[in-house]
């Protein structure tokens, strides 16, 4: 039973446009969510996070939206750049019980075309 799902294995967008990556979760105990980016032959790199007490968090070109009622979060990248091409992982954890344990989705491969 996969608790964090990224239903789109891949996404292709044009440079300069918006990239929207989606993530759904089933465990209502999750209250802290993170996005990581992974290039080939490297470990995941932390991008942005959001606590369940918020519904939006911005950091430069990256914005994460959280809809708790729908158990859904999304990562918006505006504007998209070719260097953003990578695998993006959504991860979730429970801050109070075991925040060091993150449950990851299977990733979405983003390709940004020049």
């Amino acid at each position: 039973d996969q608790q964090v799902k990224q239903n789109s294995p891949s996404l292709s967008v044009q440079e300069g446009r918006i990239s929207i990556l989606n993530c759904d979760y089933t465990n209502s105990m999750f209250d802290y969510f993170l996005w990581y980016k992974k290039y080939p032959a490297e470990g995941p790199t932390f991008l942005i996070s959001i606590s369940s007490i918020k519904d939006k968090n911005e950091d430069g070109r990256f914005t994460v939206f959280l809809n708790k009622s729908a158990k859904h979060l999304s990562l918006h990248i505006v504007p998209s750049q070719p260097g953003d091409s990578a695998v993006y992982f959504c991860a979730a954890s429970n801050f109070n019980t075991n925040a060091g344990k993150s449950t990851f989705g299977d990733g979405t491969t983003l390709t940004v075309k020049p």
Partner: protein
Amino acid sequence: DAGVTQSPTHLIKTRGQHVTLRCSPISGHKSVSWYQQVLGQGPQFIFQYYEKEERGRGNFPDRFSARQFPNYSSELNVNALLLGDSALYLCASSSDIPYGYTFGSGTRLTVV
């Protein structure tokens, strides 16, 4: 500053053998987590250590064990290797629970 370093980077073992993977966290980071990433899937949590104590364990058999040393480096041990243990093993460190972790580049383990 050096990032999270893992050794070795690649490893080939035979079924039934034992393997030890090593991780050095970022200086000052006291929390270390281990993840297994099978091709095409996201990382799966194995262990977390904080201040040398186990703080969490994922759904892995007892063949998997780990420890953290006084200098906060860590080892992941896997006994009686199976073909299904072939994966990328990632180590991640953080200055404190529970913020975003910094991952190493991983150890690619192939069991033949």
